[in-house]
């Protein structure tokens, strides 16, 4: 039997085509049929305009694209031996900005995209609070997200779609009271996380070793774990269990893991294939079914995202859960919430480290126009995983702009007999509702996937 279904509520739309045998999915295709052509749009545009364009690739992870653009342009200066000096203040404000965006994204993803669906699988009335629009917890989640993002607007001017980072630093110059205000908003987020999400103080949470530590608690994570165990999500959603993180920051280490050994990454081994993907201006072949390409490292597929980051950075709770439940929906979603908790904690500390007496921006001595032809590359950790930008300029005009988004790693089609990451995770599911939840555990962003 073959079924075809439209998947909504995934930041855009996808089609899921499944083959069924004995009430289990034996083969699946995830089709992204919409294409916006950002890499084509960016061609022949002035280099600095990319700071305005790339955040608009995605309305939820625009700061990740902005940081990737700023750093790719800075990498061009490095490539011609004229590296720019970026003050610690500017570096911190960029990382804090991106962290806040990830915090906002994680909260919304859990309350808007995960909990309403997983709660529906249970008849227990106590889970009605996670219902979309009406549910008390759903509303609290949106409330917390919009309060968190204010901390970013304080120094970035607004969110979404600000371009406050640029080669040489950042555009804003916050006061001490601005810093304090940012701290206050993060404290409110921390309070929400303790009260609503964990149901315990963060200091206690950092001592948790496995899911049994949530047994006596009454937070949303305890509800999530119960619902997962009731519906077999500790066994469902497993993929290759090979993980990649392309860049590092205060919380994340870069690297890749297959089975157990952590190894380093070399960006030159990342490539994008389009064997099963649609191509511009070419008639479609039978095997082509999606606009998403396939990202590979050294010719192999890897999962990217919060679970990969937790494993490579060796975060205890997730490491222990992973030993027991591997890369299941349960572990993947918990890794993301664990990341949220750590990010709020660490971002508060980073805010305090900002030395307002430093410069925000040091103008480059050399104009991009004077560099001639050069290529720059950058990788940043976005909410959904590793994001790569590669730009080639000719006298400061963009000749080529490649973007590999996290969702291309996770949601692109497989090639050469090998399934893509999410494709493999879906196979084995015994209902469409569960297949959707497995798909959502990767935080599907169709707009990023096809950009």
């Amino acid at each position: 039997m073959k079924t075809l279904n439209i998947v909504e509520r995934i930041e855009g739309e996808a089609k899921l085509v499944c083959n069924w045998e004995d009430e289990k999915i034996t083969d699946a295709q995830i089709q992204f049929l919409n294409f916006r052509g950002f890499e084509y749009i960016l061609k022949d545009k002035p280099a600095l305009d990319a700071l305005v364009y790339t955040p608009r690739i995605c309305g939820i992870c625009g700061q990740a694209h902005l940081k990737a653009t700023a750093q790719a342009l800075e990498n061009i200066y490095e490539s011609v031996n004229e590296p720019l000096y970026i003050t610690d203040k500017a570096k911190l404000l960029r990382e804090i900005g991106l962290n806040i965006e990830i915090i906002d994204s994680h909260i919304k993803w859990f309350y808007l995209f995960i909990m309403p669906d997983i709660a529906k699988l249970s008849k227990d009335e106590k889970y009605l609070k996670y219902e979309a629009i009406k549910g008390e917890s759903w509303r609290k989640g949106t409330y917390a997200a919009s309060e968190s993002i204010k901390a970013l607007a304080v120094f970035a001017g607004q969110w979404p779609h600000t371009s406050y980072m640029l080669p040489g630093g950042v555009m804003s110059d916050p006061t001490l009271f601005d810093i304090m205000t940012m701290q206050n908003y993060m404290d409110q987020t921390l309070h929400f996380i303790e009260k609503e999400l964990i149901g315990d103080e963060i200091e206690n949470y950092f001592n948790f070793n496995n899911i049994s530590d949530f047994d006596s608690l009454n937070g949303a994570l305890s509800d999530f774990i119960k619902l997962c165990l009731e519906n077999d999500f500790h066994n469902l959603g497993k993929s290759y269990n090979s993980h990649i993180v392309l860049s590092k920051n205060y919380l994340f280490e870069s690297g890749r893991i297959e089975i157990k050994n952590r190894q380093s990454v070399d960006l030159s081994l990342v490539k994008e294939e389009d064997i099963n993907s649609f191509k511009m201006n070419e008639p479609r072949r039978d095997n082509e079914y999606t606009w998403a390409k396939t990202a590979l490292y050294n010719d192999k597929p890897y999962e990217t995202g919060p679970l990969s980051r937790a494993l490579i950075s060796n975060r205890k709770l997730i490491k222990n859960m992973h030993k027991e439940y591997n890369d299941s929906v349960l572990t993947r979603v918990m890794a993301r919430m664990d990341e949220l908790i750590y990010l709020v904690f660490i971002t508060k500390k980073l805010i305090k480290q900002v030395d307002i007496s430093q410069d925000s921006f040091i103008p480059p001595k050399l104009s991009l126009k004077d560099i001639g032809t050069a290529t720059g590359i950058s990788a940043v950790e976005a909410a959904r995983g590793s994001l790569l930008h590669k730009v080639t300029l000719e006298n400061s005009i963009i000749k080529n702009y490649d973007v590999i988004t996290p969702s291309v790693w996770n949601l692109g089609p497989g090639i050469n007999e090998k399934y893509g990451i999410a494709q493999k995770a879906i196979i084995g599911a015994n209902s469409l509702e569960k297949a959707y939840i497995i798909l959502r555990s990767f935080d599907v962003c169709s707009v990023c996937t096809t950009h």
Partner: protein
Amino acid sequence: MRQHKPKIVWLQAITCNGNTHSLLSSNPSRFELLLNSFNFFYHPSITTENSLEDVLNLKEIDFLLLEGAVTSNKQFYQISDNSINDLLKKVSKKAKYIISVGSCASYGGIHAKFEQNSDIKGLQDILNVWELKKLKQPIINLTGCPVHPEWILQTLFTLKEFGKIGLDMQGRPKDIYFGLAHHGCTRNEYFEWKIEAKSFGHKEGCLFYEEGCRGPMTHSNCNRILWNDVNTKTRAGMPCIGCTEFDFPRDNMLETKKNIGIPSEVPLGINKRAYLTITGVAKTFKIDRLNKKLIE
């Protein structure tokens, strides 16, 4: 008292979902009031109860909101197997009010720059208003990339309460777009006395002279209502890029185009020669206070 709750249907076409996330970042108590006062019937990423099929079966929609640009080209874009244009032509006939949310839905915006698909437009360019029998007033364009959440809330609440709103020549609510982004900017005094920002990264100085700021030529009230309740781009140090106007995005948005050292575009409605005279006079004043750091 139980009130009638008008039905909202929000559709997405070619978009980055930025307007959705702008709405989700609105003031929480205002957002709650919206959810309590309207029947949020359908949004592809927020609601769970109804499907697009249910939308197509509706007889009447009070408020049809569209996020994103439209195209008839199914090769690049479709919604549940329909071309965007076909779907919107069907659904728009049911609507009492149609609101294009954002510059993409209004004019095609950033997505219209994808030249390989030559058919990317704003919603108003594909609908035939004579066929829209239920429509109570012309299509409303809430331009901006993204839209400020308050613009959505104020428009919806005003239409619910008063039934009609005044629109400018471009179909935008006059209440939002009568003024300029410039109004309320904390850098206005620097603008008046022609003191330019030393570079990016400073609280001091106006971004109009070097950094490309379009505040004096862009219709919006960003600096009067503030984003995320706390700030705006120009207050923080990022130039206005004119995202509410039909010609967004332009080239070289982060620098000011000049002829012989003079900005080639001057503030809206001012004669260029008169502007240069005023500039000359203003620059003769040496105001210490404005040439120093604000906090020393």
